[in-house]
């Protein structure tokens, strides 16, 4: 295991992650509402030691009850509408909704209308938009950090 720890140490050094001067807190709950899994891979990658999401004070939380942000990926499928709305309703206020990736933003969605529920905007109030197919880990972190610093989380829905 020491070999691994040494390797991680040197990789981390080479990654040159800059620690932010201001650090706030933001708990994020992710919901895949019909994604192709690329957004999930990039969101997962934000936790690796090249990006280190947690050093910005942002955590991915297991339950929507502990979340400030509902981060939604994918074209919204009909089958995911009920679980998605349940997760939103379980969140404490004030709460934010983030659309991660072009599909969630309703851009270039592919699929059949009979299986898709339409744009996320029509289901929930979207506060943060992170375009990309998929957005890179850097872009995801940047969007979450800037929305956090802009104080969007203060207002109640």
């Amino acid at each position, binding site marked *: 295991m020491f070999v691994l720890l040494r390797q991680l140490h040197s990789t981390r050094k080479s990654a040159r992650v800059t620690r932010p001067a201001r650090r706030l807190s933001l708990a994020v709950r992710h919901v895949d509402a019909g994604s192709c899994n690329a957004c999930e891979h990039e969101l997962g990658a934000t936790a690796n030691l090249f990006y280190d999401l947690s050093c910005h004070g942002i955590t991915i939380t297991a339950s929507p009850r502990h979340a400030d942000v509902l981060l939604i990926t994918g074209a919204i499928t009909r089958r995911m509408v009920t679980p998605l709305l349940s997760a939103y309703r379980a969140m404490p206020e004030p709460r934010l909704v983030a659309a991660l990736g072009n599909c969630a933003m309703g851009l270039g969605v592919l*699929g059949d209308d009979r299986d898709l529920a339409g744009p996320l905007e029509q289901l929930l109030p979207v506060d943060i938009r992170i375009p990309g197919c998929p957005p890179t880990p850097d872009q995801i972190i940047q969007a979450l950090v800037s929305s956090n610093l802009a104080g969007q989380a203060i207002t109640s829905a």
Partner: protein
Amino acid sequence: MGLMTSRPRVTPPNMVPRTPASEAGTASSPRPSTTLVQITASSWREAHAAAIHSGGRFAGLYAVGPDDTTGNNPANRDRTGTTIRSVFAFGDQVKVLSARAVPTQAVEMRRAGTSVAGTSGIGRTLPSIVDILPAAAWDEREAHDLYEVDFPGHVPMRPLISHSDDLGSWTVPVVGAGTHQVAVGPIHAGVIESGHFRFHVVGERVLHLDLRLFYNHRGLERAAVGAPLDTGLAIIQRACGACAVSNTLAFTQACEEVLGLWPDAALSTQRTILVELERLYNHLNDIGAMCAGIGFAPGTMAFAALKERAQRLIGRLAGHRFMFGTVHIAKGAFSPTRGETREARLELLSIKEQSARSWREVLFNTSVQNRVTAVGILDHASAERFGAVGPAARASGIPLDTRSHSPRLDYGELQPPSPVDPTGDVAARMAVRAAELETTLALLDALLARDLHDAAAGAITEGSPIGVGVVESPRGATTCIVESDGTTIQRLHLRTASYANWPAVAHATAGNLLPDFPLVNKSFELCYACSDR
């Protein structure tokens, strides 16, 4: 570190993985590969038994005809056009069995009074083959849900893609003292795709697992009907991010068969590099995910960092971290410069050294090996029965790798590494991936040294109304079927390795502890998106 409780399970990979066929200027000799065999409903089962007997490997079953959602339109209620096709691979040759489903009313009449439940006279019927070919169970359920085809003999016919509120319709009744159900999902605690698992447990022991996936069903295949081939490519790419190259490549190969085209040496080399790069970052990801499944953080972080390095390299080389937009019909879109390939080979060498070192730390760590050994066993017979593919099948002793017979790709005489100790547990699936990483890295090093420019596909035949592409994705054999007149798509069907392996995950989970499910699940690391489509 610590005492060695397990020995390396996998033979060293063949370090000279290929003969340089394309260097000599001759790509694999082109030949048509798909044969469509029309049979009658009455010889359907017999034909399947014969195909299995003669060594065919089942690669999917699908319906062609009006689907259920057009039911409101009276014009679509006549199902005279519903046909079922079943795909078998014999090495690099593909045989498609095709039979018209018989109107249900006719069957009912022949049965002299025995009515088929739930039929309204508009359904179609074909005898089920699940008793002789259990691997076709999901395929039949899908055809039943989406195309209203009845398969007498498939009892009970549980919904697969249709989501019913009636729990009894899709779960197996498990009763007895102390049994109860644990429902998980569709939203999970981590950053995971959506899917619902219903565990039947006693205490912490899982007796049975019922899966309910298809929350991400976007109707991609239906959206492709009537669309031009290039739109089909965009749709298939959207099916799954982590298998984007494999899926689009299978689609492209099917299209090229429809158009009567064959890739030249440079094109097949380009594509082989792309699909191996996909395997590289996926296998690194999957080994890291298994470490996460047992809470071995140093392993998780080390392999996550290696995956990131691989994806950064891919981003520089292919312009996209998931290689979106790099696979096209009949042309290449991946031509890095000499300098870029040189830099890539150096980086791959460094990734190879670090991943080998990290893997040794995982392999010889006693506590890790204790946690992964004899957990989530998929025995050889079950893997055969469920038609498992890919690393999961190989870890259970099925030496099946589409790469050894992919004439449209540049694998030469590749001998994939074969596990010495195919115990079918999490440890074996982990070890198979580690060995395949070495092969993939060696392949990439050899292929990136080649000339990748001026890639194209040339005409060899007049084309065919049906094309079938089979590609070894990081998760196993993925099949894509395209039925087309050469310009628009009449039917598109994608049967990915994940779709083939999901039933095996449920089987391998039974008998294990409920908290071990994430580990068992990660050891297969299947996609929901490309199953759900």
